[in-house]
């Protein structure tokens, strides 16, 4: 991570160590991925010229460029960092003044040649001290006084690139409206910022909401979070997540940490999680949800409805009633519509579907998908060799798998 204020005024040398001038401004394309395209150089003769960024090959105490370079010009859809972004007023969607851009944060990537992107803006007072070159003194002072100092950032994803072209720095959302977002959207939104910001943000959410948001985060982000949090915090979040998601999360951390987290979770849930973790090595196990509804085949419709009322209030998915015999083996299924159509004293075995479509833990996922799609099933039961039910794979899980294949960027 680089700050614009640290780059400005840096000396620029060619490969053969000839001084060209100093960095005067940086030009970027204000889009979702704000790539730096050019730099403005103030030459040793005090005139300014623009150089494409592709000629820059190293940035350290000075900036190094290739010796055979060509000068370029500003294009229509490009903006200057200093002239158009730095020090500008940031407003939210309803026009409230939030703060000014105190510094601009650039992200350096060296994987395929040197590239630089604008990753956010610094809006904290540390940014101000950096601008007047006293940040290091202030930091040292605060360190001595044991006062925590944190920079405050706004991610580039929070800023509307289009408005920037019109000379305004506008936030995509209203600051206080973030709270009204659905957890899924909030997760998407948070994924566009960095892990530290996510943590900071989760801190201010109420516990129930932060569980929802974490469940909706991409697994990579969850991994970062759980690796960072202490086991107590992890346990608190994980035990309130849906079992299959909880297990996904548990599997992202090291074995040792997983065990210490599990030890902190209440027994009933711990057993469910442990079982699922042991299944997780199979193709189906890690997709499977251990929450499903079973009832004995001799139960009447009335009994069934009563049991549903009693047992399923914490279900996140409920579409099918699985009917078992006295040995707890799966013998039939009933969907909710059929159940409601019957008179209340009819026992289930009289109308349940006995022609079962099931899968086991070793069934390839492709086959499970095909079965669900082909038979239009809301969920497929997973059974062991003894026909005992282990869990279900739901239509939702399948949609997740397919959409990740179709839209890799979504994942």
């Amino acid at each position, binding site marked *: 991570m680089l700050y614009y204020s640290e780059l400005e005024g840096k000396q620029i040398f060619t490969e053969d160590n000839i001084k060209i001038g100093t960095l005067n401004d940086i030009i970027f394309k204000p889009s979702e991925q704000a790539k730096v395209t050019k730099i403005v150089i103030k030459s040793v003769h005090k005139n300014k010229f623009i150089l494409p960024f592709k000629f820059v090959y190293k940035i350290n105490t000075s900036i190094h460029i290739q010796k055979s370079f060509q000068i370029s010009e500003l294009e229509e859809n490009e903006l200057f960092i200093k002239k158009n972004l730095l*020090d500008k*007023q940031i407003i939210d969607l309803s026009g409230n*003044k939030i*703060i000014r851009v*105190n510094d601009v944060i650039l992200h350096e990537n060296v994987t395929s040649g040197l590239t630089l992107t604008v990753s956010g803006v610094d809006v904290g007072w540390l940014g101000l001290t950096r601008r*007047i070159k006293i940040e290091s003194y202030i930091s040292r002072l605060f360190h001595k006084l044991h006062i925590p100092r944190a920079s405050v950032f706004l991610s580039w994803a929070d800023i509307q690139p289009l408005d920037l072209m019109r000379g305004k720095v506008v936030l995509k959302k209203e600051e206080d409206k973030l709270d009204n977002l659905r957890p899924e959207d909030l997760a998407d939104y948070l994924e566009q910022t960095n892990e530290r910001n996510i943590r900071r943000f989760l801190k201010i959410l109420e516990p129930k909401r932060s569980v929802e948001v974490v469940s909706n985060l991409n697994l990579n982000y969850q991994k970062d979070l759980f690796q960072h949090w202490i086991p107590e915090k992890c346990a608190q979040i994980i035990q309130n997540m849906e079992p299959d998601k909880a297990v996904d999360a548990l599997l992202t951390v090291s074995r040792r940490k997983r065990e210490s987290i599990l030890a902190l979770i209440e027994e009933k849930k711990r057993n469910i999680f442990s079982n699922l973790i042991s299944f997780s090595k199979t193709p189906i196990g890690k997709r499977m949800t251990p929450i499903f509804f079973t009832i004995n085949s001799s139960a009447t419709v009335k009994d069934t409805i009563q049991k549903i009322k009693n047992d399923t209030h914490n279900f996140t998915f409920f579409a099918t009633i699985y009917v078992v015999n006295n040995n707890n083996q799966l013998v039939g299924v009933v969907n909710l519509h059929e159940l409601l159509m019957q008179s209340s004293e009819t026992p289930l075995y009289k109308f349940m579907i006995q022609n079962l479509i099931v899968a086991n833990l070793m069934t390839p996922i492709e086959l499970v998908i095909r079965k669900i799609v082909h038979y239009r099933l809301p969920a497929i039961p997973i059974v062991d060799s003894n026909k005992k039910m282990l869990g279900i794979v739901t239509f939702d899980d399948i949609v997740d798998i397919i959409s990740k294949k179709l839209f890799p960027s979504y994942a």
Partner: protein
Amino acid sequence: MLDLKKTIKTMPLHLKLKRYLFTFFAIFGPATITAIADNDAAGVATYSLAGAEFGYSILFVLFFVTILLAITQEMGIRIAMVTGKGLGDIIREKYGVAMSFAVFGGLFIANMGTIIANFSAIKITASLFGLSPLNLIPGIILISFLFVVKGNYKTNQNIFLLSAFFYISYIVSAFKASPDWGKALSSVVIPQGIVLSKEFLFASIAILGTTITPWGQFFVHSYVLDKKLSKDKLKYEQAETYFGAFLTDFFSFFMIVATASTLYTHGIKLVSGEQAALAIKPFAGELAGTLFGLGILNAGFMGIIIVSLTTAYAFSEFFGYEGSLDAPFKRGKLFYGIFLIQLLIAGSIVMLPSVSLFKIVFYTQSLNGILLPIMFFFLLTITNDKEMMGEHINKKWYNYFAIISSILIVFASIITISQNLFHL
């Protein structure tokens, strides 16, 4: 829009006038309030002192001060209305963080001094009238804070305008002093009995310095912005600026006349301007003195609120926080916080018996003198910046006029500073 213009064109004259007047009253406020606030308690003290010392002859200075004030304030409101930005916004965006810190720091300290000067004028006047400053000052702080936080732009503006009404007390005081009106009026346009001494020069500069101030420039700018006037009302707002400048010195005229026709005529020298209220009593009567004193209290009250509002506005412009009288307290916490902190600091300093208020006021006025040329540098560069001002950049002759005025003011402030520093 076109149709509306056409209808206005074809309107009968009296309706047209009515329309213009209506628009004028809709925009009325910012420039007048700023101009009136220029006559804060420190200002009143300066005028009283000058009137007592030099009589009617000092009135000639008012003529120039009015023109200079009109020009400088007009540039301020023009920038605000054309760019939609405050002076603080523009300085931060054009000159960066370091300059912002420097200008804001200077403004904060200088304004602090002006607020202290106003508090001390209130304190002196209050004790002259037998009121206890120990109760009065905390009371004033509380009332000011409540009315700035609770009131929106409109209520604040109306209270300011109402407060401006109290300046009429100076007119009454002046009439009670039964001055030589013919001489007084003619002294404004024709120099009469001026003895060009060092003291006269300094008094003139002091009048200039108390009327044209850095905070005044900042305030008119921010206050016009906070009113959220659209650009097409510029002509009306310019007219108000000229009216405001006239009004400032209209009242100053009566302040000077009140002391000139009593104290100067009887050869009584004032130690400080605040004592004028008591000193004119034997000559102009009990009522005139009391009204004059009330006037100073009112001016002090208005001064502390407007000057600390200026700092709060400037802070939110420089650093990008919400800064509007219309903002709810939660959003504008920093804005209102800065406002209150200044009142508290200044109020506490004034209540400490051991602090030399004279020295504080003296040094901060020098700081104002240093800031003023910097302000004019900004005003002139911005009003000549075609990219920012478009068709509203300074006209050529206006520019010459503005530059000459600025040089005059800068020159005056340099003299004040060197006088302060080297005790000339």
